[in-house]
């Protein structure tokens, strides 16, 4: 009997191995949020990012960077300011005082560099060279002088992982600035889209899109992009709107973290939704 089992195992050892390793992989995949897995990832990420940082500094040596850090910070602040002023023009002051608009410019900007990028078609992640040593926290928005890039999803002592807009697992509450139409922005593998906007809402190509007042993950009025095209569904009742982001996410090497600490309770609730 034992001999028979041994012979079977020997004959099908590749299949047994594949099954075993696949089961282990899928088990690990399902336990991504467990503290042990997170500790292991944090440890590995922090150490390997050192090597990546050294390599990316060599790579960036060959790339021309015309802007100094101070200028880029100033640019990003001005971008937020301009967007805020644009909104002022469109809304009256009375309404503004009623909704208690939060001034996004009061939050400090922390400059950071991209150390490495995990580029896949639907899972855009960056690793940046700032961590909880710089008081970076999970959930903080990441942007550059043009607009929103993504948000921090993992933090180690000196490095953080940024989930970019080009990640199908990131959904953001946004609003069309001109008409105040709200929607959820997500990435479908090709475009950033806002789905299920009623066709009765006035949406035009070129309308600016920014983070919504309803989002407690992101402060309101961070520019996201412009409406590139709109398509109606079969019944013609709902629009699907494609958005062109302001920030050129693919070629970013310098960015900023907006040091926002949202309400802890809301933050925990929304971060749970992100898992």
């Amino acid at each position: 009997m034992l001999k028979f089992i041994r012979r079977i195992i020997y004959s099908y050892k590749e299949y047994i191995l594949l099954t075993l390793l696949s089961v282990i992989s899928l088990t690990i995949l399902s336990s991504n949020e467990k503290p042990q897995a997170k500790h292991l990832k944090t440890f590995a990420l922090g150490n390997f990012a050192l090597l990546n940082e050294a390599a990316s500094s060599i790579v960036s040596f060959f790339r021309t960077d015309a802007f100094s850090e101070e200028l880029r910070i100033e640019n990003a602040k001005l971008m937020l300011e301009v967007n805020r002023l644009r909104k002022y023009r469109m809304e009256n002051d009375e309404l503004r005082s009623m909704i208690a608009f939060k001034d996004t410019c009061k939050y400090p900007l922390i400059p950071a560099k991209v150390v490495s990028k995990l580029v896949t078609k639907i899972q855009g992640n960056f690793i940046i060279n700032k961590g909880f040593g710089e008081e970076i926290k999970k959930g903080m928005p990441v942007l550059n002088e043009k607009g929103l890039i993504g948000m921090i999803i993992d933090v180690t002592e000196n490095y953080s992982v940024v989930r970019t807009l080009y990640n199908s697992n990131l959904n953001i509450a946004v609003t069309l600035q001109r008409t105040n139409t709200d929607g959820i922005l997500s990435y479908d593998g090709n475009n950033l889209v806002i789905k299920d906007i009623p066709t009765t809402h006035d949406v035009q190509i070129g309308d600016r899109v920014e983070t919504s007042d309803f989002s407690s993950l992101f402060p309101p009025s961070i520019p996201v992009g412009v409406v590139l095209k709109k398509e109606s569904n079969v019944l013609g009742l709902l629009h699907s709107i494609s958005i062109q982001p302001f920030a050129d996410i693919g070629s970013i090497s310098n960015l900023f973290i907006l040091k926002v600490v949202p309400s802890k309770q809301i933050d925990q609730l929304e971060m749970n939704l992100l898992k």
Partner: protein
Amino acid sequence: MSNHFIKPILYFIPLAILQFTVIPLISISNIVPNLVFVLIAFYTLRYGQFFGTILGFILGFLFDLISGGLLGAFMFSFTLSAFLVGYFYNENKIEFNTTSFFFLLIVFICGSVNSFVYSAISNTNTNVGFFSLILEEGLLPGIYTALLGLPIVIIYFKKGMQ
């Protein structure tokens, strides 16, 4: 056999650094080749399916740890695709399989499967279409990965000529 693991694991470190720092610079609308998969395919064709499956698992685990992505996603996709590469292993044709253009075909087929499996298990957005997954997350990265296998073929082909 355990000695055979040392070399690919050592090669993995510089390749992973290149994958995260240089390869994003040559991405075409977020489609990138996978250098680590070329390494796995090469060693699987040298040492067989059993070896390749374990190597895919180990390198997938390391890749997941350092990429900041989902832990287990590359582990599963590399394991599965290395197992597939193993079907092309033939101990009498090792040189042919790893130094001819047949190597590129293997990398293309199995690299496409690797990219597709990775995208399928790491994606939670239902808006991503199945055919988009096959074409844009599977076949196109597969072609790009195969292109990156070209230097290996050329180097070994030249060596063979000498």
